[in-house]
């Protein structure tokens, strides 16, 4: 049977070994436990040379080379402005041209819809089937989980 005060001291040592390190000098039992644990912990981990590991995709990714970005951006803007000036165009004209491609898509969709309305019942059924098949295939492909990191 252990003395209760010694038992409390052992308990305190086990809870916080670093703060109660002096307890080891007075308690042979705890000294034996500590020695056994140290012997087990003395197995050294394998040496890993970080440089031999493949480069992870996130390494250096947060670096922001502003001189490169701003320089290339400025060069691109200057070339664009010079070309617009040479072609006698304003930035508004550029915006209108980019909207024209959207308009082309819109007119394509509108004409397809008009054709569908005028089509026979059989064609409408076929379109409906194509719509269902393509969207089912889309759902099927979306169900596959991405594997980029694990590849």
């Amino acid at each position, binding site marked *: 049977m252990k003395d209760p005060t010694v038992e409390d001291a052992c308990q305190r040592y086990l809870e916080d070994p670093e703060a109660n390190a002096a307890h080891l000098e007075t308690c042979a039992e705890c000294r034996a436990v500590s020695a056994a644990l140290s012997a087990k912990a003395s197995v050294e981990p394998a040496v890993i040379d970080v440089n031999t590991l493949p480069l992870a995709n996130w390494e250096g990714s947060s670096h922001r080379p502003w001189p490169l970005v701003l320089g290339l951006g400025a060069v691109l803007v200057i070339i664009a402005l010079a070309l617009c000036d040479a072609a006698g165009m304003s930035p508004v004209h550029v915006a209108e041209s980019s909207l024209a491609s959207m308009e082309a898509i819109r007119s394509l969709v509108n004409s397809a819809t008009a054709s569908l309305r005028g089509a026979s019942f059989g064609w409408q059924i076929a379109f409906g089937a194509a719509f269902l098949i*393509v969207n089912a295939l889309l759902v099927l492909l979306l169900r596959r989980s991405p594997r980029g990191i694990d590849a």
Partner: protein
Amino acid sequence: MRRMLRLFLPLTVVAASLVTAMIAAPPSFGVHAPLTVADATAMLQNTAITTALLAVWMFAAVALTLLSGREIRYSSLEMRASALHCFALGLVAVTSFVLTAIVFSYLIPYLVGVPLLFALGVFAILTKIYGMVAVFHAIGTLVAGSRTREQLNRRRWLRGDLAMVVVGIIILGALRLIPIVGPIIWGLSSVFGIGTALATKFGRREPWFLALKVA
């Protein structure tokens, strides 16, 4: 079932490719050198518009990379890891967008079509923008990315997501300026980008659908 799917998938990809090519093809697909002053002016105007749009793309790409660099990086990695899946998904997605737009347009007289069409348009545009930035990153990394840690440490400017995106824009933009081939390359990149954006759920790597488990 598997055999049917094996046959069905390539056929659908071919069909989707044809539809996408028909939609993406430039309106005037003639191969000729500029013979008159008007032709030369039109060519110069086209080049000016393309370059101006590239500048807009660069600002959008830089802003998006600053806002969500990690997501762009994940998507770029996915594109390089499973390119075929991303391309097939992109083809099917573009075809689905077009067919869904026709269906929603069909529903316009019933009022519900207008908001649905608007939502589809916004979603398609956002998908394309995000996907293209992921394509820029992938191209930049493939061409100018560091292969070793020493190479990465030696570099002062040509490292990081932002640099890879900018390099990708410059390369793809230069290709875009080539007549006839350029728009086709850009269109294929868009298909890749849309597929990647959808495959990775905009870089979040979450499933699109909840798995239904039967007890």
